[in-house]
């Protein structure tokens, strides 16, 4: 492994880009800008040639496992195949090279697409009002909790607490805190279900929101979902659904139908947006009618073409018969609607980010929904659940699965016995799997299961791959503990010293 950084490759005088000569009359920058604001020299970035940059990054890329190269059963992350057609669509100049402040009439194709995404997400969630703005699932949580806060302020109720099961993603309590709520933890059972006694004990009139992940993070559909939601509603609270696990229930069950008032989607999980090594994502949220006015603005609206007052004023010739050509040379829209950004939402919580949304992610989600359709989306969930259950049925024979014999899209096995009997931890298994050519499952989450190993195969893997993974995992559990403690053995590096990294931090190149 070549550990040279870009900075190590730098040599004074090297260039990879050549900018054109200035073709307008130019003056010295010092004449145009105040001396106090000017730097003596530009920042000390590395100086490189194009071939160096290309080779550096192409080789760097090869040190990553990825969905396109390996099975990646990282529980809770839904590492499904990213269809290449979606990437092509998102790269079209008319999708990629458009500015967020373009006049509406010059961006009707995009607005129409975004309007449809709002509609589709509402249909899938069973929650009629949608805002696409949030930049990630966690920001969707925050936005929704701010919606709840505004709602309660509006109806003059003071509620300060948010209920969160202990097996929820850490983002749930963190978002609650950011939104100004106190987070109250609810216990869960071995099965992953909410401990109803604890829940009822903690539910009071100060509870603003119950945040619930359903199916939950051990891959179980909350058995008391209806009871939980009814109890919260009865006390005047709201139910928030963490949509991270929507991949299990598309077209099967809708949060709006099982009691949620709000939810976010993770389009980069459920609708196949690539994870990009950590991002970007998006976090659109859907809410009930009564919460709709509080959503972040703008949202996309639609009205009949004839109602386009603006164009009546300024456009010389609004075409008759539906279908005005707004972009020179482009065919007419043809369906008689005009799409616009609706800023006129006085109760809105405001913005959680600049510009419209993570549009590029939403374009991919749109493509995914359009190429699957209602049957295809349901089939996605069916196959995701089939794959997870099949893998569970193979794994449970050598690694116990406390939640039982059934799961939705993922399951959580435990290496607790292996740990106590042979000293082999979940981490050891995870690391050793890398040697066998598999990305590791999620380990040590949720904390409610000891030595947990959380496996989410997704629907885009074949039975052959699942079989190979189960066999590898089994083989690993049988291997010499010493071998496992030192694993992985075939990767460029092995077991980095994380303690040293945090104690004596080196967070940038200092050459």
């Amino acid at each position, binding site marked *: 492994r070549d550990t040279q950084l870009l900075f190590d490759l730098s040599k004074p005088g090297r260039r990879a880009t050549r900018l054109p000569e200035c073709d307008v009359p130019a003056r010295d920058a010092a004449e145009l800008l105040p001396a106090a604001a000017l730097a003596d020299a530009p920042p000390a970035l590395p100086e490189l040639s194009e071939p160096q940059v290309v080779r550096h990054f192409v080789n760097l890329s090869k040190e990553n496992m990825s969905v396109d190269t390996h099975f990646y059963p990282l529980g809770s992350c839904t590492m499904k195949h990213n269809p290449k057609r979606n990437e092509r669509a998102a790269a*079209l100049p008319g999708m990629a090279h458009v500015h967020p402040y373009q006049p509406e009439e010059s961006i009707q194709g995009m607005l129409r697409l975004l309007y449809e995404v709002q509609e589709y997400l509402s249909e899938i969630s069973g929650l009629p009002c949608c805002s696409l703005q949030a930049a990630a699932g966690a920001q969707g949580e925050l936005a929704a909790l701010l919606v709840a806060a505004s709602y309660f302020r509006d109806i003059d109720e003071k509620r300060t607490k948010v209920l969160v099961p202990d097996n929820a993603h850490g983002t749930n309590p963190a978002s609650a805190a950011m939104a100004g709520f106190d987070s109250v933890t609810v216990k869960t059972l071995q099965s992953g279900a909410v401990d109803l006694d604890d829940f009822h004990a903690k539910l009071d009139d100060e509870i603003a929101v119950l945040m619930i992940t359903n199916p939950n993070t051990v891959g179980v559909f909350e058995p008391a979902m209806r009871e939980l939601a009814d109890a919260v509603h009865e006390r005047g609270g709201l139910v928030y659904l963490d949509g991270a696990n929507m991949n299990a229930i598309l077209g099967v069950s809708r949060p709006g139908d099982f009691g949620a008032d709000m939810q976010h989607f993770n389009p980069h999980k459920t609708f196949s947006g690539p994870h*990009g090594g950590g*991002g*970007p994502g998006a976090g659109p949220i859907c809410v009930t009618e009564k919460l709709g006015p509080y959503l972040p603005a703008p949202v996309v609206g639609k009205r009949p073409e004839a109602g386009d007052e603006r164009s009546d004023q300024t456009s010389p010739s609004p075409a008759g018969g539906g279908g005005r050509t707004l972009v020179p040379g482009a065919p007419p829209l043809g369906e008689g609607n005009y799409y616009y950004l609706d800023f006129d939402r006085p109760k809105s919580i405001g*913005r959680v980010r600049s510009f419209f949304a993570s549009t590029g992610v939403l374009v991919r989600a749109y493509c995914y929904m359009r190429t699957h359709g*209602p049957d295809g989306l349901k089939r996605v969930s069916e196959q995701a659940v089939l794959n997870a259950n099949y893998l569970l049925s193979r794994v449970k024979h050598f690694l116990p699965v406390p939640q039982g014999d059934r799961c939705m899209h993922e399951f959580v096995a435990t290496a607790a016995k292996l740990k106590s009997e042979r000293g082999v931890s979940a981490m050891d298994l995870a690391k050793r799997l890398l040697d066998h050519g598999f990305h590791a499952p999620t380990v040590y989450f949720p904390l409610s299961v000891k030595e947990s190993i959380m496996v989410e195969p997704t629907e885009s893997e074949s039975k052959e791959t699942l079989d190979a993974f189960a066999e590898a995992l089994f083989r690993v559990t049988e291997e010499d503990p010493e071998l496992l403690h030192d694993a992985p053995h075939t990767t460029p590096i092995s077991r980095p010293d994380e303690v040293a990294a945090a104690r004596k931090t080196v967070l940038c190149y200092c050459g």
Partner: protein
Amino acid sequence: MPFTYNTPEDEQEMLAAIGVSSIDELFEMVPESLRLGRPLDLPPAMGEMELDQHLNKLAEQNLNAATAVCFLGGGSYDHFVPAVVDVVASRSEFYTSYTPYQAEVAQGNLQAMFEYQSMIVRLTGLDVSNSSLYDGASAAAEGVLMSLAAGGQRKRVVLSAGLHPEYRETIATYVANLGVELVTVPTPNGVTEAADLIEALDDNTACVVVQQPNFFGCVEDAETLAQAAHDAGALVVAAFDPISLGLLKRPGDWGADIAVCEGQSLGTAMQYGGPYLGVIACSEKLVRRMPGRIVGKTTDRRGKPCYVLTLQTREQHIRRDKATSNVCTNQALFALRATVYLALLGPEGLKETANLCLQKSRYLAERLCESGRFERAFDAPTFKEFVIRDCENDTEGLVQDGLDAGYLTGVPLGRWYPELADCLLIAVTEKRTKAEIDRLVEVLVGNPDGTTSTTEQEVAVGIG
């Protein structure tokens, strides 16, 4: 249904292994009463070919900067993106991987993020960068939250009106329920006056947020503003334009404690506003309050240098409601793009890019003012964008004239600044040619003598 993964035979074998007779049986844990019981009401599935044709038709309805000429700015810019950036970011191993939890099979991502952090540190002149946030606005809001956390009981936040209005709105949303007092210092002359700022400061002020160059493109007297803030014991959160740093002083050099920016200019397409790249850097003393992922260097068990996610005790998956933020990912792919972009430009490329923006925007502003129809709204010097006042007060007509000519002319400011309803914010990047600029002047100033075709021809000759 465009994909078939498991074949019908596979399905049967798998169901048998599980011990159920149908896929439906697997869903038994979903109570019947909570099932949808009907197909989703969505359009039927398309194949890839139909999708392609459909998306092509939608895309045609969007005037795009590859064929139109874009003078829009306000935080998203039509800067040039070298092809290498796309090549790197479209490597499967980068874009189909996830957060590097398993460092052994993620050194590619981890090293790239470490390089990104190093680039940002050098760019900003500050000590520490995280591995990125969502966008400029949320980075600004996180900067404010950091300041509040660092400020103990200080509960006042002062914003310059020259800070991007959507950043100000985002900050307001983030702090809405946190008992924070938000104060905005006006900028009647296009810049933040030190006296006004000092007036807004008190010993309850956690931070001041200023933008350099500001939303109007004007260059602020940032050093003086920072000094005033520090004198009041407040931290300085600086929003900056990364391209401007080819010429301007770095935030760390003029006194910023936290610097944030929208990193879209660094190699990411405008894509109608997102996803983008939130850059945030801070001084050493604030590092443990930093939100988001941070990559650190360490050694592996054999002593090899390597990279890992570090300082994770700040984060929500460990600290839950006590975390510095709820952010649990980064914008890795765009941080990668920014790293590649900066590597390709180098110091000289960044400087030349900045200078082209400066010269060309100045040229356009002067040409417009010569016409008599327009005047600069503010006297302050500007970098790559500027506010122009239409003496005929018809910004809507100007925008429409631009569209008709295939030009995206400028951003009308009335939406955010009612007093600037007769103004446009116009940005000129290094991509704009003199011919394009001259043509814009012609379009905006009006062209009564019908010489348009000549200029159009001139533009076309420019293709040789």
